């Protein structure tokens, strides 16, 4: 089935990095994009501007996915873009690193809440317009961390591995309605989140370099497209060979 003529995409945490690149890639593919941000309004507006200058349609959408009412975000996106949200990219994520033996409850809870629980709640709200339209695309931004170990990130690994499990089960539940649910698992990508990662780690990647946000966005763009209609419940690793 083809994407309806008027269809919006909502990308969480899209003020910078991978989220911003995803928003731009989806807009370039004809989606009207809601660029969600929690606190970086300037960043979100820069993303919107980049999209509109390139001829696309976008609005900045303020909201903290970890502590808000998802339905309100969806309603606002639909109202401002004049189209139901038929693509959701759960990209918003935080880190609070530390060895498990020293990790406090807050560090654990915050990362699980933003990276996993929020993604679930957003996905649950997304199901209504998508099932009704008999068309939908949910893409969860997971990580190589989760399937693989990364000392100091037990919370992040749990949340990201959880996202992959959630992706598979929800994909099964809604597949017969033309709604696909997939994950992308970025490896080391050049963004704020990885700026302190030592060079030695990047040298260990088979591709011998970090990836770019655009390379992750290209994978999301594909999964959100009509071409990916038979792809569901899967995880696409964008990691330079790290997990192979």
């Amino acid at each position, binding site marked *: 089935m083809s994407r309806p003529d008027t269809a919006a995409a909502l990308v969480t945490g899209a003020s910078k990095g991978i989220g911003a690149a995803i928003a731009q890639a989806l807009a370039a593919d004809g989606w009207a994009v809601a660029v969600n941000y929690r606190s970086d309004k300037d960043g979100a507006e820069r993303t919107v501007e980049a999209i509109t200058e390139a001829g696309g349609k976008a609005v900045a959408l303020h909201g903290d996915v970890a502590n808000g009412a998802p339905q309100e975000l969806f309603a606002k996106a639909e109202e401002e873009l004049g189209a139901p949200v038929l693509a959701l990219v759960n990209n918003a994520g935080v880190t609070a690193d530390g060895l498990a033996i020293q990790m406090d409850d807050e560090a654990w809870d915050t990362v699980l809440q933003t990276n996993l629980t929020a993604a679930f709640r957003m996905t649950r709200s997304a199901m*209504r317009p998508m*099932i*009704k339209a008999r068309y939908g695309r949910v893409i969860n931004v997971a990580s190589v961390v989760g399937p693989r170990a990364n000392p100091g990130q037990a919370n992040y690994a749990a949340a990201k591995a959880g996202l992959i499990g959630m992706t598979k089960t929800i994909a099964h*539940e*809604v597949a*017969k*309605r033309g709604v696909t649910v997939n994950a992308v698992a970025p490896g080391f990508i050049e963004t704020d989140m990885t700026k302190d990662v030592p060079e030695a780690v990047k040298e260990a990647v088979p591709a011998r370099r970090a990836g770019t946000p655009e390379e992750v966005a290209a994978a999301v763009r594909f999964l959100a497209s009509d071409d990916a209609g038979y792809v569901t419940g899967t995880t696409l690793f964008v990691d330079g060979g790290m997990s192979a």
Partner: protein
Amino acid sequence: MATATTPETVEKTIFEALPQFGVEESEITRESTFEELDVDSLDLAELSQIIEDEHGVQLKGDDVAKIKTVGDAIDLVVSRA
């Protein structure tokens, strides 16, 4: 849009919604079980949303699990109005 919630209007909403899930119109009666109509849990979840949009009555997961026949669904919605 909220419609008056009477047994007749709820029956109409449900009878009209079920064919969307592949159910033969001629097979739908108050006594039909969702199982024999081949209506699964996702269909019931969607039916709940249609009922909520039409009648403003919210059916939760637990409620839906207890509904066996079309009549059960009608009665439950009317009781919650």
